[in-house]
């Protein structure tokens, strides 16, 4: 049988349609490899068959495609899943590689322990430093508060001294041989509000059971303007609407209804 007869024997169609026996298939593949005419005949019939079946195609139900695509995606996932499994098994095969990993892990563990101890010690150190800082911070806050109060005092003092409506009454010892040699006080008397502020420039320190008392002299009579202790800065006294002079006497603690002589210092008002 020559090649042409072989081609026309029906073996080509039988092979393509899957009806050839194993023997016939093997022979046909040998013939294809050896003779391009056989290959050409096979290809021609394949194309004819394909054309025929495509022209007589029946569309499957429209929902089937999404099922097929879903199946393929599941298959894809399985395929990728297999790779993960094989990676999990890898360490069993490569125990030499695993030893290095284990050694590295032990070194890392020891290193980590040392670092932990170091950081714990550091932590303790910083805790005590922190406590110190909190304490000094509290101290600073207290000091700051005291300074604030002082500043407020000085500010009000400054207001008094700067106020243009203040009359200033300088009070000096009433007699050169009196009890307050070198004594000196000043009354700041507001012309509008009639508030009285007393500044003690210099007075002898009184006994523990005594207190100085300020008097306003109104038409020759003494009017109580309040007791005071010696301190820095002005002391607000009682409001005095009208006075020709101010005088200070030493009285029992708490003050007296009428002055006990002698007068320590005395000053006349300008008004």
């Amino acid at each position, binding site marked *: 049988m020559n090649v042409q007869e072989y081609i026309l024997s029906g073996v080509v169609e039988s092979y393509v349609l899957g009806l050839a026996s194993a023997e016939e298939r093997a022979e046909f593949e040998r013939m294809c490899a050896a003779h391009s005419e056989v290959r050409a005949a096979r290809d021609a019939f394949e194309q*004819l068959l*394909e054309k025929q079946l495509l022209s007589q195609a029946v569309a499957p*139900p429209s929902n089937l495609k999404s099922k097929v695509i879903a199946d393929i995606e599941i298959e894809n996932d399985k395929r990728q899943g297999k790779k993960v499994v094989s990676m999990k098994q890898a360490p069993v095969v490569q125990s030499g590689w695993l030893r290095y990993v284990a050694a590295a892990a032990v070194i890392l563990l020891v290193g980590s322990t040392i670092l932990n101890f170091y950081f714990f010690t550091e932590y303790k150190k910083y805790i005590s430093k922190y406590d110190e800082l909190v304490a000094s911070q509290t101290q600073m806050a207290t000091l700051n508060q005291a300074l604030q109060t002082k500043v407020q005092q000085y500010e009000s003092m400054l207001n008094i001294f700067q106020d243009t409506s203040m009359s200033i009454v300088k009070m000096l010892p009433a007699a050169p041989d009196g009890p307050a040699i070198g004594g000196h006080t000043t009354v700041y008397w507001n012309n509008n509000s009639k508030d009285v502020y007393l500044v003690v420039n210099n007075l002898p320190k009184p006994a523990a059971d005594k207190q100085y008392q300020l008097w306003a002299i109104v038409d020759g009579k003494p009017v109580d303007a309040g007791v005071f202790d010696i301190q820095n800065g002005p002391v607000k006294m009682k409001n005095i609407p009208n006075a020709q002079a101010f005088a200070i006497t030493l009285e029992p603690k708490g003050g007296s209804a009428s002055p006990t002589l002698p007068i320590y210092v005395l000053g006349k008002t300008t008004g």
Partner: protein
Amino acid sequence: MGITGTYTEQELISALKERDNQAYGYLYDNYSGALYSIILQILQNSELANDVLQEVFINIWRKIETYDPSRGRLFTWMLNVTRNASIDTLRSKGYQNSQKNQGLPENVNISGQVTQTNIDNIGLTKVLAKLKPEHRILIELAYFKGYTHEEIAQIEDIPLGTVKTRIRNALLQLKEYMQ
């Protein structure tokens, strides 16, 4: 691979071997109808045909590595995968049982569609109908029922050599009618 238009046979094969989902979508769009018609012709049951078509595409996906272009075209390979799956189903117990409950095997209801597709107008039946009856029965038994030549010789009570010769002649006739 972003190709959505058409593939050359080579491009399609390499995309399929890379398990490119888009290539499988393309394959389905272009070939599912031709393969489905063969499944219907073998099983004559649209519900089973749907299952088989689904199975065929998974098989194509799984076995694409085994496809060897030197042995023939991609379509021929897919057609053989399809025919084998269909005949396996035909021979299965499930199919035998389903046929007992099935009244009209020659008419196929394409699930839900109003029109009934006559099996005589699909796949190879049209060309098959032109064959002489003694040729036609052999093709039916060999190709659509999947019997071996030996089995056919027994069924038809004719010598094996005659079966072989008649089948080959029938195939050559079939080819003539396709042209």
